[in-house]
């Protein structure tokens, strides 16, 4: 078998010719000329809701000639937080990563500033609330873009029949579908009386006292409605104040009317409580109602999602926004920003809300009266007040206004529910406050 050898002269000539051909060849825009983009989205728990994200990304990718890959990452067992931590450590990973509420602040040093994306979006979609700014901005820099999928208000989801029968409250009259809320009497006092009445009737409110987010969010809104802050915006510890004492006293009274096993509740427990028909109210986004529509339609027909009761310092509702962040070490930041603009357009937001059955909540002021919330049912209008269309409450997150890196620890260590539970279980007020103060001192590490 003969073998042709390549001489040095032939090799040099071939190399020169190919280089010349490459340099002089015309630029041909290929199918994926604008490069690749890898995206990590939160895996939605509403069946089929991921499809909205996939469709929107594919639609944009086809137009912009970008090759995209999407990973849907579950938030179960903190998988999405683990992914963010691992990528921030490795300085490598997805170009866009969807992050739960506190994570843009936690990884602020690793995130690309997105002011150039947010400023036009705010003009287009309207302002965002204070909590989105608190969590998404640092020193005037937008760390991430508020994502519609996953963002939620954890307001009351009441049983129309049980609240009317046992507490004498007509939640539909208080929050009429299509009209403004009539909430002069919807206060913490009324809420407590209703909790007592429903407890006596054997259908107690299903409010957790555990260490997961639903329990903490409720505690956050109640504390804020009394003006109670463990750490103020300047970072000073303000545990031993009259406001905190008032909130603790209120919580102690409330705990007496909650299910005895509430300290062990996780984020699924309150959903099960409502769906099983054992309780007159839970504080949750409409995911429990959505499951009840499938598994217990007779319960779903009696559910009404509405606003929070007001306390001495105002009406606060627990709000948990999700964000889309772009890593500063990402490889295709321009494409990532372009996609975020596309996913934040009014038509995209409308699609997210529709596909999630009204669960997903846009952060922008102009996007709170979409037809999905008015039309969803049964009963029709059950979600009308879910996005707070009349802006009658302050959307807030527990532990704010403490500096976010301190507040994140108060939030995840569930300091609010723990101190309330300690007090309710027999510790004196001073003991419970001293414990909380000690915890907060520990959170001051920088």
């Amino acid at each position, binding site marked *: 078998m003969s073998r042709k050898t390549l001489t040095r002269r032939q090799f040099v000539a071939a190399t020169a010719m190919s280089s010349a051909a490459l340099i002089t060849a015309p630029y041909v825009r290929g199918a994926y000329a604008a490069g690749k983009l890898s995206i990590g989205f939160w895996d939605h728990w509403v069946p089929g809701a991921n499809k909205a994200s996939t469709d929107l990304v594919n639609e944009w990718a086809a137009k912009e000639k970008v090759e995209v890959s999407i990973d849907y990452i579950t938030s179960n*067992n*903190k998988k999405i*937080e*683990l992914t963010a*931590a691992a990528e921030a*450590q490795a300085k490598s990973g997805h170009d866009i990563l969807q992050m739960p509420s*506190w*994570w843009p602040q*936690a*990884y602020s*040093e690793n995130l690309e500033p997105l002011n150039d994306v947010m400023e036009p979006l705010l003009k287009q979609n309207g302002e965002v609330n204070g909590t989105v700014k608190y969590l998404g901005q640092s020193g005037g820099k937008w760390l991430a873009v508020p994502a519609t999928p996953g963002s939620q208000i954890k307001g009351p989801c009441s049983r129309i029949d049980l609240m009317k029968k046992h507490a004498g409250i007509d939640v539909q009259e208080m929050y009429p579908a299509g009209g403004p809320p009539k909430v002069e009497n919807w206060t913490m006092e009324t809420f407590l009386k209703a909790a007592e009445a429903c407890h006596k009737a054997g259908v107690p409110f299903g409010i957790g*006292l*555990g*260490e*997961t987010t639903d329990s903490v969010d409720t505690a956050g809104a109640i504390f804020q409605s009394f003006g109670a802050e463990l750490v103020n915006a300047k970072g000073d510890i303000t545990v031993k104040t009259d406001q905190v004492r008032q909130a603790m006293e209120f919580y102690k009274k409330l705990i007496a009317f909650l*299910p*005895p*096993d*509430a*300290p*062990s*509740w*996780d984020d699924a*427990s309150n959903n*099960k*409580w409502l769906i*099983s028909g*054992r309780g007159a109210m839970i504080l949750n986004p409409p995911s429990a109602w959505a499951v009840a529509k499938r598994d217990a339609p007779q319960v779903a027909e009696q559910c009404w999602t509405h606003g929070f009761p007001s306390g001495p310092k105002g009406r606060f509702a627990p709000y948990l926004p999700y964000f889309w962040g772009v890593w500063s070490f990402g490889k295709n930041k321009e494409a990532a920003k372009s996609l975020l603009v596309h996913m934040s357009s009014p038509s995209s937001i409308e699609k997210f809300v529709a596909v999630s059955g009204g669960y997903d909540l846009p952060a922008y002021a102009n996007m709170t009266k979409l037809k999905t919330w008015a039309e969803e049912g049964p009963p029709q209008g059950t979600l009308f007040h879910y996005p707070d269309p009349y802006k009658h409450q302050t959307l807030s997150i527990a532990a704010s206004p403490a500096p976010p*890196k301190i507040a*994140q*620890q108060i939030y*995840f*260590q*569930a300091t609010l529910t*723990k101190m309330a*539970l*300690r007090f309710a*279980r027999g510790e004196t007020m001073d003991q419970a406050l001293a*414990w909380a103060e*000690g*915890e907060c001192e*520990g959170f001051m*590490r*920088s």
Partner: protein
Amino acid sequence: MADVVVEQGRVARARGARKGSSLRNALGRKSTVAFFLTLPLILLIALLVLYPAFYSVYLATLNKAMTKFVGLSNFTFLFKRETFWMVVRQSCIFAITAVVFKALIGFIVAHFVHNIPGKKQRKWRGMLLVPWVIPPAMSTLAWLWLFDPSYSAFNYTLSFFGVGPIPWLGDTFWARFSVILVNVWYGAPFFLIMYLAALKSVPDQLYEAAEIDGANWWQKIWHITLPMMRNIIAITTLFSLIVTFANFDIVRILTSGGPLDTTHLFATWAFQVGIQSSDIPLGACVSLFMVPILAVAAIFILRDVNKRGNEA
């Protein structure tokens, strides 16, 4: 001069030959072969165990923002935290109680199984190993449903006897009881299988001789079974103590450390502090505290095993 050169060359050749043969000898030695055979495993351990271990030591010396070296101040900070000492106490209670019960149950059931004849024994062995072979995250989910606050199957059953409802995961005592119970259920088969293997290696003649001497069942256990099994008991206890101390999944799934942090272990608290509260250096610190505690236990137990080995 030439002679010297020739001489030197010969010396060099002789040395080279000796070197070659000593290399051959070294390669032929059993210990060298053993070393090369275990080298892939050593490399794997270095990559998956040693590197993360040293990396976590490095992380533990950084400040919260991970921007500067702070030496041991994370450790001194932890010493001042009330919750940290609670976690230390709970980890010890959890690990010691669970290991004692696993050893006891494993020992008793191993005796029962040992006395089952032939084929039937194989079936029982297989069935009793089931808890150990199911991934703990899955089996713990099933336990979570049994303990569920609203739909507990246990409470439902107890209600027929007029007992309960018991807040299995909502009350400190019951929550600790529940996590230990699940750990014992999961880990006892490991003790069972180790003890069964040890029981099978005890010569029957010893029991026969004891019987002739009029020994009762307790004396046979005390004077024959236990001394013959003590090394395996020590090693199994140590191994189980390490695994139980570092447990994560059972507590994470059942209670997430609650109520009021009273079921947190080192691993679950490290996760809460490190990942959920974004304080990775402090989380690394918490998990590193397991090392000295387990090292002390390992030294005591292994020293005892060594002593007995020498006596033998």
